[in-house]
């Protein structure tokens, strides 16, 4: 079976002003359907860069980033956009649209995928119920706690039945108790609904809860552990 995500000798170099920064220096990685992978590493190790490439938000400098067998370097902007609709993003800072309620935030993602209004409403409600926010779906982000906001973000990420969830420090901005709840939710989605999940974190304790952990240092994967 084709891996959902496959990185082959992946390199990414940024220009920081005039200084080139090698964020990734030849990463090889495979994620199969149903996996729950944690990418662990200190800041500056290149884990967010890797995540951006997996999510087709950026293109590699060298090497191949294959999503479902397609090299993203060969795709144009529109094709990349289509690809992004099949990826569920969850960000450290939630990135909800502040003027929209929880439900509207989830609906936005569905409207981007051209779903009809009535279907959108039902789907958003059921998704928010899945993440345990049935009672608070008409609240705006400012009226929700950090954990609740992240649940909304997860519901939004799941909206268009993505091939995998891509989470950048999903618990980085919430207290540890809530972080555990969020992680339990992700684990549940992975185990019960078969959602493939890739999570970047610098929290060793959280990383061990995943099925597989890779450790990154200075733009390279230095260790792979199956938990």
């Amino acid at each position, binding site marked *: 079976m084709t891996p959902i995500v496959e990185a082959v000798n992946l390199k990414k170099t940024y220009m920081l002003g005039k200084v080139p920064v090698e964020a990734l220096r030849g990463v090889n990685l495979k994620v199969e359907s149903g996996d729950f992978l944690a990418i662990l590493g200190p800041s500056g190790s290149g884990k967010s860069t890797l995540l951006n490439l997996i999510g087709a938000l950026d293109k590699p400098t060298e090497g191949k980033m294959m999503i479902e067998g397609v090299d993203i370097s060969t795709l144009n902007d529109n094709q990349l956009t289509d690809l992004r609709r099949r990826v569920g993003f969850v960000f450290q800072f939630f990135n909800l*649209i502040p003027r*929209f309620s929880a439900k509207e935030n989830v609906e936005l993602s569905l409207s*981007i995928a051209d779903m009809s209004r009535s279907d959108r409403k039902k789907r958003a409600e059921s998704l928010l119920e899945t993440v345990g926010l049935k009672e608070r779906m008409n609240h705006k982000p400012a009226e929700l706690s950090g954990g609740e906001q992240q649940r909304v973000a997860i519901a939004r990420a799941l909206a268009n039945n993505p091939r995998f969830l891509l989470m950048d420090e999903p618990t980085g901005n919430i207290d540890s108790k809530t972080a555990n709840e969020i992680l339990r939710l992700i684990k549940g989605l992975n185990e019960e609904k078969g959602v493939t999940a890739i999570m970047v974190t610098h929290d060793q304790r959280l990383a061990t809860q995943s099925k597989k952990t890779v450790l990154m240092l200075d733009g390279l994967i230095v260790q792979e552990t199956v938990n």
Partner: protein
Amino acid sequence: MKARDILSYSFSAIRLRKLRAGLTTLGVVIGIAAIVALLSISQGLQATITSQLERGFATDTLIVTAGSGSFGMGGGFGGGGDSGFKLLVSDTQIINNLPNVDTSVAIVEKLVNVTIGSTNRISTVVGVNFTEYYNIYSDTFKADTGTIPLNPENDSIAVVGRRVIDPRLNGTVIADVNDPIDIIWINATARPPTTITLHRNITAILKQIGSFGVGGPSDSNVYIPITQAQTLFNTNESDMIIVKLKSSDQTVIDNATKAIKDAFSGEVSVISATAILGIISSIFSIIELFLGGIAAISLIVAGVGIMNIMIVSLMERTREIGILKALGTKGRTVLLIFLCEAVIIGLMGGTIGVALGWVLANIVAVVFRGGGVFMGNQANAGTGGMTITPILTPPVFLGAVAFGVGVSVVFALYPAWRASKLRPVDALRYE
């Protein structure tokens, strides 16, 4: 994203920043209101002038004056020609014999002092053949009180316009039919200068015409039989000859014009009412263009404001754009969202602007009319009792709204394009 979703998304973005959107819209409102007010007033003014000219000045008439120049191009109107050629009163006979000519009437006119009771004013005294003049201007050379005698050559009478006896047209009448009127002409070229006074009685007062025209009856003129005018001014020269044609067809006008010019070896100017209306309408189009241009500048300023706001908004919403893109929004959709905001602003500004402009135009019209409110009767005196009814034509209405939208969209293009080109990684990293 579906069109409706784009629209509601744009609306939600505008609603979020009501004050800012309101001020941006205000810029468009002012620009559009200025355009609409200026254009509807100038169109109204044009309509007023045109209709007055049409009344004072039938479309099947030509005006013949001495001088080979043409109206509006230097030669002038009734100003003696370059060669010293003068029209004579008897030239009507030559003109009457030309094809297509129904009749013609010679006019002798001079500025004189007119004394009615204790009031002494300067007025134009016009000598005409009453019968012929009435034939040509049967609508306006019409008595309101009294009767216009048709063969009054030897009677000591005068027909006066309404303003002669009611100078401010406010009902304060200083004389009535049968009252005496003195026409005092000072012959400044005689040596020694002589003063001739004609004692006359008002035999008819014309109904108010309210218009001005060349050759046609006017509210402020005093009319006397042409033979008496010739005697009074001791002249055989005619200031102008008004020619009535058999029809108002353009070919008839053109042929008669040529025939008259030829009959006087090109020493006369022949003006048709249609030509003057044409000149006036072309002058007005220039004025409209000019006024519209000035107003358009304010709209362009508004456009720069829109661009400015859009760029600020783009920066503020960089992260939001990043989110949209990460969720799979196409660059084109982001572009449309921003343009849609501009369209909404332009549409609101345009519509409110048209309404405001229309209100402004009507306020200006009321002020201009005087209406006894702001300037009292002096306004009336100043404008010759003219009223302006602003005109808002559907092309102006739609054009103004479309222009408002157009300006907004044009100035939003660059910010919208920039937004659509933002790379999601950069946009998401933006703080």
